[in-house]
């Protein structure tokens, strides 16, 4: 009964948020250059990118179109590897000058003490660093001999700062699923207070590598692991917002599933395209900062993000959970968009049947 009321109220809340569509989370894909060559890269990034880094002034011109930004609008710098750029600090200060916050997603490879200090000095407020297993499995996924050591150092630095809202993310796959308890111990020992777990979406370089994807049983094991440690006060372990997880909703994260792509989350991509999360199929782009007014596009377009009824197709067409799931995470719609790439709830249901 209570659960039904909560569900209904949350549906209403989603409707109202969608109608309001306040922009309070903006990705900037500031580079597609990367110093690693990860097996699971959804962006297929390389050391040398076919796109030059976007000049800061171009990004700021787009940012300045936002007439009235919401409280705590966070600009999230992502890539590629954003720290490949030497001018991140300049950009960060420009964002802060405008009264907005900024944060960074990094693979940790270039995150040393000097950079940590210069980023904090420039007003960095939140940071996410990837750690995809213990040394061997992390370096395997990251396709690097020494990234783990650098990530370890980066995590120690970030965790030592009481200013940063910092978390570690782990892409869970066949090679690291059995290491989760040890990874948790490692992070606690490093002083990390928040840990987010993902699965890998079959896009970019990942799609042809079966080692990267959990079986249905392993996926449920992952959810059980998170659920077991959710109430643990030592470290906040949660599942990412990548998809709807049916019976596990509310057991594995703070809130019900709500894909906010295009509702509260926007992006400016490397070629100036205006979209939502960078891992979303680029054919969903809504405009381009080099020819459109960014904020006008945010306010007046994004129909396919704010009305998801078009996702009621393929396996979603007759699904009983559609009202709460609405086609899963938006990044699960690629190619011909006739069917969702991953249905987390289906994976769970399959295991529950046995």
């Amino acid at each position, binding site marked *: 009964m209570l659960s039904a009321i909560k569900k209904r109220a949350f549906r209403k809340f989603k409707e109202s948020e969608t109608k309001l569509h306040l922009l309070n989370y903006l990705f900037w894909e500031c580079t597609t250059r990367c110093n690693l060559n990860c097996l699971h890269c959804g962006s297929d990034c390389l050391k040398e990118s076919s796109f030059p880094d976007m000049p800061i002034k171009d990004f700021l011109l787009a940012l300045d179109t936002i007439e009235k930004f919401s409280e705590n609008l966070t600009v999230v710098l*992502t890539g590629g590897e954003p720290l490949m750029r030497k001018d991140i600090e300049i950009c960060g200060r420009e964002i802060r000058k405008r009264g907005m916050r900024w944060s960074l997603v990094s693979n940790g490879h270039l995150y040393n003490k000097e950079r940590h200090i210069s980023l*904090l000095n420039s007003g960095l407020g*939140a940071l996410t660093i990837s750690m995809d297993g213990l040394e061997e499995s992390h370096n395997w996924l990251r396709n690097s001999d020494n990234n783990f050591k650098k990530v370890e150092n980066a995590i120690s630095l970030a965790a030592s700062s009481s200013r940063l809202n910092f978390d570690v993310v782990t892409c869970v796959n066949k090679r690291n699923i059995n290491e989760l308890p040890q990874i948790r111990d490692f992070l606690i020992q490093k002083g990390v207070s928040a840990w987010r777990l993902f699965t890998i979406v079959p896009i970019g370089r990942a799609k042809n590598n079966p080692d990267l994807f959990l079986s249905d049983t392993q996926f449920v094991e992952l959810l059980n692991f998170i659920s077991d440690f959710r109430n643990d006060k030592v470290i906040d372990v949660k599942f990412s917002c990548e998809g709807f997880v049916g019976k596990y909703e509310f057991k594995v994260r703070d809130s019900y599933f709500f894909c906010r792509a295009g509702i509260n989350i926007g992006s400016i991509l490397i070629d100036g395209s205006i979209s939502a*999360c960078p891992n979303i199929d680029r054919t969903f782009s809504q405009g381009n900062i080099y020819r459109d007014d960014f904020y006008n596009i945010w306010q007046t377009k994004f129909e396919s993000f704010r009305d998801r009824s078009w996702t009621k197709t393929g396996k979603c067409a007759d699904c009983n959970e559609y009202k709460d799931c609405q086609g899963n995470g938006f990044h699960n719609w690629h190619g011909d968009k006739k069917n969702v790439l991953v249905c987390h709830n289906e994976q769970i249901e399959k295991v529950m049947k046995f």
Partner: protein
Amino acid sequence: MKRNWMRRIIGGLSFTSALFVFQACYGTPQDFGLDMLIEGQVKSKTSELPIKGIKVSVADNMQYDLTNENGRFSFYTEMLENMKIRFEDVDSVQNGLFINKDTVLTVLNEKVFLDITLEEK
């Protein structure tokens, strides 16, 4: 304003603690931290000229900035009560020799400008 109240009420009914706090799948947490921008200029008490190369830091914190040729420094740092800011001559005789100084910030604003003079050794 009315809309904002409505969304809070509807949100509250779903008993979810983190309705307005979220992070995108591949993004970072949002930043709700309190910080402040500390800027200023360091000059010589005797010559009244700006001093380059003075290390400006917050006590018990690894953050610091070095003054530039105009004696200017600038950094964001966590907003804490009674924060002690330290000014240290760390480059030996290169830009003159000055006595280190500590100052305690008693007023906390989003932005603070400090005019500091250092005595020569």
